[in-house]
């Protein structure tokens, strides 16, 4: 049952993504991207990441895509002709995309533990980089609730990056206002 739901959502996500990059109108593209993000939120729930799924719907499908739609409608783009490139760029694009996919798929043979040992040989097994080794996720999520299990590493191991994030958001907000304002 889980696998059936997963594959349904996966096909939904891929079809929506393809429609997103082939639609002529930017508004249609944005709406198909929202559809991809909803499918991904469903997949996150299947992967025991309920908090991230809620964040995906609220922040990505909600806030970020509304920002995109605002800008599209603010600019009032009248596009009769398609902006999709023709000829050589399409071939190059498909080749580069296929190259990326095959490069990522060729990694599927390597185990994550082996890759970690090769990339960061000094990290011992019980370090903060490996918070919950080996499939204890469901038990940990059941012990505390779902959000509490994510909050534990976020506010202990990753506390400093979390605080730096707030500075980043402040800088982005000020920068966006400065850039978009006509006269300061």
């Amino acid at each position, binding site marked *: 049952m889980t696998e059936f739901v997963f*594959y349904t959502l*996966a096909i939904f*996500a*891929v079809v929506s*993504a*393809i429609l997103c*990059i082939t639609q002529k109108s*930017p508004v249609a593209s944005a709406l198909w991207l929202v559809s*991809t993000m909803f499918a*991904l939120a469903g*997949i996150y729930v299947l*992967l*025991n*990441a309920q*908090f*991230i799924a809620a*964040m*995906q719907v609220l922040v*990505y499908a909600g*806030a*970020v895509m509304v*920002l*995109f739609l605002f*800008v599209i409608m603010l*600019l009032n*783009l009248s596009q009769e002709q398609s*902006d*999709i490139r023709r000829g050589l760029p399409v071939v190059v*694009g498909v080749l*580069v*995309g*296929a190259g*990326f*996919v095959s490069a*990522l*798929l060729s990694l*599927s043979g390597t185990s*994550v533990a082996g890759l970690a040992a090769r990339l960061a040989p000094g990290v011992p097994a019980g370090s903060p*980089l*490996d*918070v*919950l*080794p080996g499939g204890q*996720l469901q038990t940990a999520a059941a012990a505390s609730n779902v959000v509490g*299990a*994510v909050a*534990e*590493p976020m506010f202990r*191991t990753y506390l400093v*990056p979390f605080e730096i*994030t707030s500075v980043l*958001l402040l*800088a*982005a*907000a000020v*920068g*966006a*206002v400065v*850039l*978009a304002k006509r006269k300061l």
Partner: protein
Amino acid sequence: MLLGPSLVLSAILFGIGVIGAIVRRNAIVLFMCIELMLNAVNLSFVALANAHGFGGQVMVFFVMTVAAAEAAVGLAIILAIFRHTRSVDLKTMNLLQG
């Protein structure tokens, strides 16, 4: 477990994002393709978090924050460029072409 299929789906979505970023000329759609690539990476983070612990989910949180900041600043830049050239077509953005 869904780890393998999730990583394959992540790779496919990333590839679609790359193709879109190369093929489209509309700057806003280019941004959407970048968001699509970020989402694909998030999916692989979540899939690996499911097998190896919550660190991946925290990383997804940070990626989402950076993506939101990037979208805000990027769209403001596009708005500023649109005031100059009256277009968001990447063909018209060739001031540095020499």
